[in-house]
């Protein structure tokens, strides 16, 4: 479990993290979203025990990250941004070093090493020095290091950055597989990732929490939520039909691909009415879809709103 209360980090006059409070329970995978410089990494560094909070507090399974730092660090697996490691070491040598310093010994040390190496498919490069590995492999070494001691809490700063689509898929599958009994925080600015791995998302910007919801809940804030989009031969004729439906708030035509989107009034469902109207007017559509809402649009809307206010 991770809990932060009014967590704040100042660098001189600059406030990087400005009073963040949240609580993450085991079984939750929390996606940390925000534009660059929003305070994601700083928050994670404080949780991992690298930076000391200027104000407020954070605890890992009840251990305060400042007062009982060692106890907290033992429970955390942390992947720092960029997955740094000791480049001159071999993959196996590096993981053995981490195992030793994490206090693993004997049979469990061997088993955990095998498990981490297996889960991240590092068998083929175990004897290579880390400096000679590709970016994707380096990232996987960093992940192996983080999960090596089977920690209760995982803090992963951009775990899929720099990976190819297949590797991304593998890492997401890995996170999901571990999610059951762990508390996991993943920072990312790839929004599709939130859908793929997270069951909760926090959007932060300028050091503050702006939204804290499930991915579906965030999507529901989009004006595209429950909107109906379709493509047909005569887009303007379709629009004229759709605007007459009572629950339709607006109809837009995409300038590029002529796709028509009908937006519902708040809280209304319009799919049935749209289909009905098209049928009764004899309009043929090539394809029609019910939109779930667009995270990128919600993200932009939430994170830019404060910038204007500030």
């Amino acid at each position: 479990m991770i809990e932060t209360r009014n967590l704040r980090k100042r660098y001189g006059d600059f406030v990087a993290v400005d009073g963040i409070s949240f609580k993450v329970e085991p079984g939750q995978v929390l996606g940390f979203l925000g534009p660059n410089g929003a305070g994601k990494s700083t928050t994670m560094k404080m949780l991992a025990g690298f930076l000391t909070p200027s104000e407020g507090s954070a605890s890992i399974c009840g251990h305060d990250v400042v007062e009982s730092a060692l106890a907290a660090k033992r429970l955390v697996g942390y992947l720092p941004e960029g997955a740094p490691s000791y480049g001159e070491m071999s993959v196996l040598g590096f993981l053995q070093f981490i195992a030793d310093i994490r206090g693993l010994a004997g049979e469990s040390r061997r088993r955990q090493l095998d498990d981490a190496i297996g889960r991240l498919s590092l068998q083929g490069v175990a004897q290579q020095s880390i400096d000679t590995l590709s970016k994707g492999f380096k990232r996987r070494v960093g992940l192996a290091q983080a999960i090596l001691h089977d920690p209760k809490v995982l803090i992963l700063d951009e775990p899929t950055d720099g990976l190819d689509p297949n590797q991304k898929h593998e890492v997401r599958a890995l996170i999901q597989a571990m999610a059951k009994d762990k508390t996991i925080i993943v920072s990312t600015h790839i929004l599709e990732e939130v859908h793929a791995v997270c069951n909760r998302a926090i959007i932060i910007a300028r050091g503050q929490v702006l939204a804290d919801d499930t991915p579906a809940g965030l999507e529901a804030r989009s004006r595209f939520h429950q909107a109906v989009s379709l493509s047909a031969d005569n887009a303007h004729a379709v629009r004229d039909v759709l605007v007459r439906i009572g629950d339709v708030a607006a109809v837009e035509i995409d300038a590029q691909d002529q796709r028509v989107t009908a937006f519902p009034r708040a809280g209304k469902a319009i799919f049935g009415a749209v289909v009905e109207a098209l049928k009764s007017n004899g309009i043929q559509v090539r394809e029609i879809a019910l939109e779930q809402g667009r995270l990128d649009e919600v993200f932009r809307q939430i994170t830019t709103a404060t910038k204007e206010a500030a």
Partner: protein
Amino acid sequence: MSPTRILFRRELASYFATPVAYVFIVIFLLLSGAFTFYMGGFYERGQADLLPFFGFNPWLYLFLIPAVAMRLWAEERKSGSIELLLTLPVTMGQAVAGKFLAAWAFVGIALALTFPIWITVNYLGDPDNGVIVASYLGSLLMAGAFLAVGSCLSAMTRNQVVAFILTVVACFLLLLAGFPMVLDFFRGLGLPQGVIDAISGLSFLTHFNAISKGVLDLRDLFYFGLMIGFWLYATTIVIDLKKAD
């Protein structure tokens, strides 16, 4: 195994995983030999002792030890591995000590490899081996003090060249603190005699020379111990202050 020992082992192995260790050792041995035999007049003096060797030792350290110390923390900060290291379950003290001890052991290995010169002097004559052992001990302690200074200054920057230059300058001042050149400078500032004496007492050379004469005064050992302790403690503070940037 204690975390300090695990870190020590990893660090020491990392010296030998790169050419750094071999270049350092070869250069150290070559220069030690060259200074002793050519500039020190090892044969011409006609005396069976290692004074020419240990006489040049501090000046060799002045440039070679900062080269070992500069990577201690600057490299960790540059590569970002400091973030990994300090989020592992180790205390700051253990991390600083483990890295320092590894560097010290490494310089100790280089120093130990000068043993042929000891054999030579014993073959040629009948030296006072007690004095030689004391000199080796003094040299090792001085190396430790140099390294501790370097550790602290290396923690201040992520640039190894900057760390190197700062360490050379700081060590040069500490080395010469007892010399008129430095003392006259402080006298010129109008400092009271007590302060001047204190500065002169900080000199590496004064204490090293005392030990090299074969006199193991507790005060000289204590001085180097205190020096190492102080600079390592300063290292932990500097890392704490600077790790955010």
